[in-house]
């Protein structure tokens, strides 16, 4: 079988386009339409115009969800990614079995699904009996009765800690891969010119790994904004005082728990818009900052 060069890309793209059209675009259009209605069941449907959007934008619960999600996102960007990069730098030049083993170990939590991690950590975080509580009590004399998943002030730290365990290693691999692409000659030359480790890192390594940094920042942001399954299983709900309510959790609550599909769709659109906007800003910021 041979394909003409002109048509070949379209043949290759056909499965992607067909499946995306049917299972992404069609439901997407449906979801756009439904966001202007209030529905109940297959038959009852009332046009409400922009009411779903104005309700969501004015809803204090949505504001809370947005703040929580933003905090979580900032946590993953400013705690998780530096840790990932730091570990990658520590591992980078190492060779030998031990270093490879450490690399595997640090990545390994990513093998465990969010559902499992959620329930596993819900036990680790238990007041008095949880490993984390007992560990903290042993080490620093604090924390035995802290209700990580029950105290509004501790829910977000608990979520961030859990996601650190899951994702630090995953992003580390990206950085590790990027570091291997850094031109060793450039590093040596900079050293030769008397640059200290920090300066080498700042002016040689960081610019060199910038494309990967953009990529990791973007994917982490998208992932963080779409956080759902982890709080869903870790907290078995939204947590006390909605402290673990995320935007997608709010979407789930309105669309499925409360059965208001129209409002749920409106939440989805608002979220997509925010992710889009944040993504654009990040590409400009990180793109420029790293290149300077």
């Amino acid at each position, binding site marked *: 079988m041979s*394909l003409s060069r002109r048509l070949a*890309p379209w043949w290759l793209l056909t499965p992607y386009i067909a499946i995306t059209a049917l*299972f992404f675009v069609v439901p997407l259009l449906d979801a756009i339409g439904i966001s202007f209605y209030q529905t109940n069941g297959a038959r009852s449907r009332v046009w409400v115009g922009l009411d779903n959007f104005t309700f969501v934008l004015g809803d204090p619960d949505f504001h809370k969800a947005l703040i929580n999600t933003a905090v979580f996102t900032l946590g993953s960007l400013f705690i998780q990614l530096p840790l990932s990069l730091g570990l990658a730098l520590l591992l980078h*030049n190492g060779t030998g079995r031990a270093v490879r083993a450490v690399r595997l*170990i640090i990545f390994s939590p990513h093998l*465990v699904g969010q559902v499992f991690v959620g329930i*596993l950590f819900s036990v680790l975080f238990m007041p008095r*009996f949880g490993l984390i509580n007992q560990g903290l009590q042993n080490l620093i004399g604090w924390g035995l009765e802290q209700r990580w998943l029950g105290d509004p002030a501790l829910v977000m730290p608990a979520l961030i800690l859990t996601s650190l365990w899951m994702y630090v290693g995953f992003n580390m691999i990206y950085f590790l891969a990027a570091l291997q692409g850094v031109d060793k000659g450039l590093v040596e030359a900079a050293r030769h010119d008397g640059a200290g480790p920090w300066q080498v890192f700042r002016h040689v390594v960081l610019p060199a790994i910038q494309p990967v940094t953009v990529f990791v920042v973007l994917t982490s942001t998208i992932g963080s904004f779409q956080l759902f*399954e982890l709080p869903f299983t870790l907290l078995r709900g939204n947590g006390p005082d909605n402290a673990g309510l995320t935007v997608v959790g709010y979407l789930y609550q309105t669309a499925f728990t409360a059965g208001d599909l129209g409002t749920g*769709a409106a939440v989805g659109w608002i979220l997509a818009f925010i992710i889009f906007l944040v993504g654009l800003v990040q590409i400009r910021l990180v793109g420029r900052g790293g290149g300077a």
Partner: protein
Amino acid sequence: MTSLQACLLAAVGVGVLLALGGPRGRRWSGLYARYALLGLAAGLTLTPFAWLLCAAIKSPEALLQTPFLPALADWPRDLTLANFATLFKPQPGYPPFWRYLLNSLFLASVGTLLQVVLCSAAGWALAKYRFRGRGALMAFMLGSMAIPGMVLLAPLYQLTYRLGWLDTWLPLLIPGAVSAFVVFLFRQASQGVPDELIEAARIDGAGELRIWLHIGMPLVRPMTGAFCLIVFLGQWNAFLGPQVFISRQELLTLPVALNTYMGVYSQQYGVFLAGTLLAIIPPAILFLALQREFVSGLTSGAVKG
């Protein structure tokens, strides 16, 4: 000294051992610190696994008695394989446990294969051909990643129903057979294939399909391995989709089936955790098999932005 303090000391010890086994001839200043840090990170990462392993073999009464393993004298009483036995014990009206394992294995491997084949084709087309609409397609693809999947769940359910696919595996396999993210990764990886090779093949009379399969894909292989793992993990651990689309017990996947041990009237943590341990094994095997390709593979997907 408590067992926890012992655990942390052990982590530091691992770091020291690593230092001894580490590379020689470099500057030694800071090397110990570096390996101690790495050892600490590895120790902290492993702690939940260690806990999980211990929890899975403890009796329910012993689960929270000690952080890890009970005192040696209590082993005969407190250590048991009962949690695993409960998982595999036949229950009237329910399929045997291995059935869920097999279902998950089948769904995850077929789902991964579909994604790898279809997305590599799309990625190759986007990387190696110039055609009208390519820019628009790329923009659409990247934009589609911003849409949370949850918005589509209800319309997708309706569509699945109209197609007569409810209570089958099709809604788990087909809509998930392509992913913008994986297409994007394959596009980035395919860009690394030199154009001269392709031109040379064309001159030799190779067809476009042949060029994709026998010149493009072999060169992209290291990345394919890495993407395979990422896709497999997503499919293997999928929860929401199987929970919503499947109600026939014998079609359920492992995570959904295990979740029923955290039931309404009773929560069998030990059994659930034993199941979690089993659920980690297949992706771990895949990961260990692919680890060589893994690091190098991921870069090319991300580097050339």
